[in-house]
């Protein structure tokens, strides 16, 4: 059943605008990060590492969460429009599968986004004249950043389901990300879902930010994930469907 839901969600993404967002939006932080790096070469002397701090700073703390929010808003917008709520909720599939199906697809698209970001990073490095290949750790940080999206993905999917507006949940994600600066600065990033991605992607230091706190990071991530996914499924099960 879940597999069928995932297939359906994938089919809905055909000829959809979500892909242009997936391709174009990460280009912005890549350009910003590279520009920043090139402007501050006298301070940033760690080559690939330095470029990564700049690029991932812009990406993970400003663009990443709103981008996921956009994916979530898009997926639910399809249902909010044209009475599709009625169709999915009268389909003979377990209600949780509808939510998991969408969440899976968000992860798929997020995963592709991360791969694309990795490629962009490589391209920007080469264009900035960095020698050789980026350090392998960066792949690990990318993967951790992808994992960190689990909490925000579930949260945004829940928000976009409840809020019929397309833009409001994205605005929430942007505010959440900006607030994330404050949380991270105070060392409370672990307790704020929108900061987890910055932590996971190790954005602003060339030494590993999570080397000693990986277990608590994974734990809070899992807790946030279960909390938001649980809230989403409960809402789907209990709420009356309103199509207008």
């Amino acid at each position, binding site marked *: 059943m879940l597999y*069928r*839901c995932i*297939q*359906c969600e994938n*089919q*809905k993404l*055909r*000829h*959809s605008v979500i892909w242009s967002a997936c391709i174009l939006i990460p280009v912005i932080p890549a350009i910003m990060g590279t520009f920043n790096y090139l402007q501050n070469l006298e301070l940033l002397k760690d080559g690939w590492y330095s470029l990564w701090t700049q690029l991932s700073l812009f990406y993970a703390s400003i663009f990443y969460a709103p981008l996921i929010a956009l994916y979530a808003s898009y997926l639910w917008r*399809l249902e909010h*429009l*044209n*009475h*599709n*709520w*009625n*169709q*999915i*909720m*009268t*389909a*003979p*599939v*377990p209600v949780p599968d509808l939510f998991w199906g969408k969440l899976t697809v968000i992860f798929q698209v997020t995963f592709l986004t991360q791969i694309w970001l990795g490629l962009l990073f490589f391209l920007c490095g080469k264009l900035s004249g960095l020698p050789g290949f980026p350090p392998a750790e960066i792949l690990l940080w990318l993967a951790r950043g992808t994992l960190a999206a689990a909490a925000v993905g579930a949260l945004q999917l829940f928000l976009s389901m409840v809020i019929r507006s397309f833009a409001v949940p994205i605005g929430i994600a942007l505010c959440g990300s900006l607030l994330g600066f404050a949380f991270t600065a105070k060392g409370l990033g672990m307790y704020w879902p929108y900061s987890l991605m910055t932590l996971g992607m190790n954005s602003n230091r060339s030494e590993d930010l999570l080397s000693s706190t990986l277990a608590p990071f994974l734990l809070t991530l899992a807790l946030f994930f279960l909390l938001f996914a649980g809230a989403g499924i409960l809402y789907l*099960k*209990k709420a*009356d*469907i309103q*199509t207008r």
Partner: protein
Amino acid sequence: MGTILTTKSLSKQYGKREVIKHLNLSVPEGSVYGFLGPNGAGKSTTMKLLLGLVKPSFGTIRIMGKEFSSSTRLDILRNTGSLIEAPSYYGHLSGRENLQIVCRLKGVEESAIDQALEVVRMTGQQDKKAKHYSLGMKQRLGLAAALLGNPKLLLLDEPTNGLDPAGIQEMRELICSLPKRFGITILVSSHLLGEIDQMATHVGIIQQGELIFQSSLADLHAHSRGRMRLVTTNNPQAYALLRKAGMEVSLEDGGSLLLCSTEDARVLRCGRLLFENQIGLLRLEEQQLSLEDIFLKLTGKQVSL
């Protein structure tokens, strides 16, 4: 003929507002059940309750012998097709792709799509994007989606709403043909009495959340047989006299009698009886109750018909 769908005291409240009040629906298997009521009477809400889209405040629903609950939901939905409020579709996908999604969700083979398209006569337009369809085509696409998986029960909410006259006629014919062709029971709602009159075999009339009439269409028509209105010099005496003679007659408020028959022999006998008892006949007129009149009588107010 058994019933495929029954509700017991089905009710829905939003806060203190009761929108559906103790509905006891009974839909016979194989029927086209016309669910009739003015706009805002609670037809859509009822249909949503029957599908689990809206949760009842109290009361129970039985569909195909199973009480609707979270454990029977999937079983019931698997055998139910629906078109609620307006057609559902993903505008950026073609008609066929839309139906593929429905097939996947219902776990139906994609080969069923061709037949469904053929039934709604949309084979030629299946590759057009759904957002470019006319409303009539979207409605038919919605019906095709509802038909996928050979449901035993079809819930159609105002399926002719917004269609042009030709589309309305086509949709009606389609609906009427389904029980015979596929043995489907149909619950179809409308605010148009004439429409229900053309399609339905059974009728339920809802007003302000209450079911005020439920029976076969023939029964509804029986209410509409002609009557004779009489005004005499002494109505109460005439009433007693005719009653004594075994005639079906009623005394109306407006100072007249209603004889529930237009048969010549009856009218003749009635006149003779009055004459023999020296009651003068002042007026005698035939009254034909239309379905509109019955509806008006049942609902007590003018509604859009």
